[in-house]
């Protein structure tokens, strides 16, 4: 039995980045003050979100209503359950990490329009945490669109023609998907009279005809294009023109995870696993995800640009999550849910490493990185941890989620799905291992010569090294039994209990 508690904490957690955004605008001319606002807000937000965890672990949900009766039967308000809290915790914790990294990155490269950058970053976190804490689809939609709009200036930050093109593509994909989402929400509301998230869902076969429900699901799927499944994925690699911290937080955690988060919400909390199974949508979705998992890995092998390869890897990994819920088995869903934070930590490590390589050596392509591991040992060691995690090797966090996904596939009883999972893991090794190999064992001669008057390449500033070491450390810690990972697993189990 889940108890509901009224608490203002969700609203406070959201107020932090919003207030920070305003303060950032006001302290336009004072960089130190501006960046400390970001950090303070991040710490506060994380503290508030963390303080909700004990209640959630006691199997309670936290509700807070801002506007009552926005539409009949719908309040504009928040409802924090275990799943939402997991996502919110991940986003807000990684915001702090990435903010520290950003300070080093933006200052080292002397980027322009830094105020705009931090402002939009705070707004984006506002959107992402809002998505995580929303109690119903319409509230979620509001934050989902704020997230889209606020990340646009970050994508086009460079303001080059290439960046502008990427920005247009980004908006074209994501706002079109927003339109589909709005249509889906309106239809859902018209048949069920509610859009609340309930474990077990509010749509049943009695709500509407089968074809209607299937089309509605398709609309929802199109609506969450942020999940970057094939064939709606191409905005993500294009968006990699953004500064690396943006790619790290937004295109490995906040934005894309908001999409996947939405799909999980739809499957488990709007349709419910039972209805999904009866409609046969689970198999359909799982096949969809399987195609993306393998297809994106194949694309990734062909990329030489490190960030693009990571982007395709993200596409593939996101589909693990979709795949997990599509299995509709308890283990699969658990695996999917814990893959959200775990993948977040591992992928952000990889992106931060890519960023620090860029700052320290100016290199973007993998082929130029031969031997860089000897010049930047800390960075490349962290990268290796992240990469091994992606492949699901034991002793890294990635192993846990893959383990659960594998169990889920077995529970589902479909061995083909297990095979897909294994093949895809193998492909992960194929595209990650060469990077690690060239970095440590490649020929480092001549790599210093074409860099800043042939100065010897060194590690990136501490502002960048520390954050990526922390995330790499976490990627390992999660594997070993400890209170944090147990709490995570407990939450994932709670998320589906009625």
């Amino acid at each position, binding site marked *: 039995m889940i108890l509901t508690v009224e608490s203002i904490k969700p609203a406070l957690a959201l107020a932090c980045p919003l207030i920070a955004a305003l303060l950032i605008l006001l302290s336009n001319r004072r960089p130190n003050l501006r960046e400390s606002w970001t950090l303070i807000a991040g710490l506060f937000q994380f503290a508030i979100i963390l303080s909700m965890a004990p209640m959630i672990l006691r199997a309670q949900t936290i509700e807070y209503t801002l506007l009552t009766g926005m539409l009949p039967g719908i309040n504009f308000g928040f409802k924090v359950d275990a799943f939402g809290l997991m996502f919110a915790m991940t986003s807000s914790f990684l915001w702090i990490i990435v903010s520290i990294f950003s300070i080093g990155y933006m200052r080292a490269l002397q980027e322009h329009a830094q105020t705009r950058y931090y402002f939009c970053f705070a707004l984006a976190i506002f959107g992402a945490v809002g998505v995580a804490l929303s109690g119903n689809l319409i509230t979620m939609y509001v934050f989902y669109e704020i997230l889209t*709009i606020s990340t646009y200036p970050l994508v086009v930050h460079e*303001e080059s023609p290439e960046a502008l093109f990427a920005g247009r593509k980004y908006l074209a994909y994501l706002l079109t998907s927003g339109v589909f989402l709005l249509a889906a929400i*309106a239809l859902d509301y018209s048949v069920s009279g509610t859009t609340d998230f309930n474990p077990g869902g509010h749509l049943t076969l009695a709500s509407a005809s089968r074809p209607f429900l299937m089309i509605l699901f398709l609309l929802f799927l199109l609506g969450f294009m942020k999940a970057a499944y094939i064939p709606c994925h191409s905005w993500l690699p294009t968006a990699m023109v953004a500064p690396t911290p943006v790619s790290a937080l937004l295109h490995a955690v906040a934005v894309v995870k908001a999409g996947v988060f939405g799909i999980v919400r739809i499957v488990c909390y709007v349709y419910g696993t039972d209805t999904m199974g009866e409609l046969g949508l689970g198999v359909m979705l799982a096949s969809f995800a399987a195609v993306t998992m393998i297809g994106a890995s194949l694309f990734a092998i062909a990329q030489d640009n490190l960030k693009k390869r990571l982007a395709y890897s993200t596409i593939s990994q996101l589909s693990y999550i979709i795949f997990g819920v599509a299995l509709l088995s308890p283990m699969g869903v658990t695996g999917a849910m814990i893959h959200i934070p775990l993948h977040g930590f591992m992928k952000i490590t990889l992106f931060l490493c890519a960023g620090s390589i860029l700052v320290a050596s100016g290199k973007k392509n993998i082929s130029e990185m031969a031997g860089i591991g000897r010049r930047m040992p800390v960075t490349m060691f962290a990268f290796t941890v992240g990469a091994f995690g992606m492949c699901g090797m034991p002793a890294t966090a990635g192993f846990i989620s893959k383990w659960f996904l594998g169990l889920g596939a077995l529970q589902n009883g479909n061995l083909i799905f297990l095979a897909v999972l294994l093949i895809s893991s193998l492909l992960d090794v194929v595209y990650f291992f060469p990077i690690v190999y060239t970095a440590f064992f490649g020929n480092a001669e001549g790599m210093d010569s074409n860099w800043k008057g042939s100065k010897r390449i060194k590690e990136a500033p501490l502002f960048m090294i520390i954050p990526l070491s922390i995330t790499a450390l976490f990627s390992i810690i999660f594997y070993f039994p400890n209170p944090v990972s147990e709490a995570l697993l407990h939450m994932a189990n709670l998320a589906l209990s009625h």
Partner: protein
Amino acid sequence: MTGFVEHLPILTIVIPLFSAFTILVAGWFNKKSCIFIFWLTLTAQFIMSFIILRRVLIHGPIHYWLGGWKPPWGIELVVDSLNAYILIILLFLSLACAIYSKSNIEHELPGKRVSFYTLFQLLIAGLCGVTLTGDIFNMFVFIEIFSISAYALIAARGKIALKASFTYLILGSIGTCFFILGIGCLYSVTGSLNIHDLSLLLPPFYGNKVVKAAFVFFIVGLSIKMALFPFHTWLPDAHAFAPAEISAMLSGIMIEISTYAFIRVSFSVFTLEFLKLLPVFDILCWVAVAAILMGSVMAITQVNLKRMLAYSSVANMGYIMLAVGISLSAVESPWGGLNPALMHIANHALMKGCLFLAAGAFIYKANLWHITEFRGLARKMPYTCAAFVLAAISMIGIPPSAGFVSKLYIILASIEIKNYFFVAVLLISSLLNLVYFWRVIETMYMKHEEGGHSSHGSHGMREEIPLGMLIPILLLSSLCIVMGIVWLGKIPIPILDQVNLMFGLGKVP
């Protein structure tokens, strides 16, 4: 005290009329005094409109008999929740435009200040008159008063504006001619001109061909005035080349007042039973759909910012008329009846007012008309550009802006009548809005001035507009967002519910 409130409707019309002539006379002696008389009048009117609304909400409609003559012989002013609501929107936008106009007119029409304010005041008097009157012929006279002032105001900039004004004059006159033709037909059948009286006398004649013809004349006449799709040809030029605050008034409220007249004629004169006899409103929906698509597509092809905004107005009139069209069939719910239409009238007034004033600011500061010239503008005019972005976001319908709420309500109403085609059109049009607004935003923020790439990182020269112009723009743009939350909180919904109740709309059939 209540006795005084009873007189407020006529005062709202008479005071600006007198003020218009006072401005003219005072302008002979002291040119600077005009603007203050104008502001004072508008502020007084604005306060009065709130008192009227409060009175109407508490005690029901105000009936004011001019000269004490009893209707249907005398002229009557009737204020119910519908026109009290419209009046507030009208006067609020007028006030914003009035504040804006001080600096802008000194710059844009230096020698014509006195006549400008006289005409502006007459325009507002005419608009208030249309809103408040309870007599249909009186409505025609006020329509002509605001139209004639508008013709002159549009032409104020000279050159191409003259041609635009002339085209509008011809089409507008034909529109009002159709309107009096409709009045004539109704008069020949009933012998009455009072709106309330007509609604009582007409029902026995609903089968009469003359009555049906009268309704069609009203529709055609008012469609021209409100620039509904096939009759929109006068609008883009007229709205593009008028002075900024007049463009804002034209797009923000004048065409909406014609929509108000249409709602008044359809629901107060003809009542619901008549509308259910004819499939006019169904046809209207499809015309509105055409207007939405056509207006949006044409807006994409424009290079002149104000013309683009003008075409966007054509599309938005489509939204409003679509909402009016489906009002008959939508059932009891917050989006039932006329709610989405009236909601979008308010929201469109805010958004379009803000956009046109911002466009005027670009012209004021750097004589920029074309979208391609806006490179790097965000660095020079950060506040104006930010306001433009907020209003544009609202136009596109990104939550939680005002535009989002009206879009959501129209979509929910369309779903209610099981017309998924309308839903698709509304969604597509919001994407089209995105295309043409984002092009502007991208140029303003992300592209640099040619040869000015060196300003990378530095802030360049700030060239913001005077505070008097900036405040209304910022006020309107912040309201674009705030109103979204206010609507979601359903604060003004009781007013709209009264309107539905009055017209018998939004009930479970």
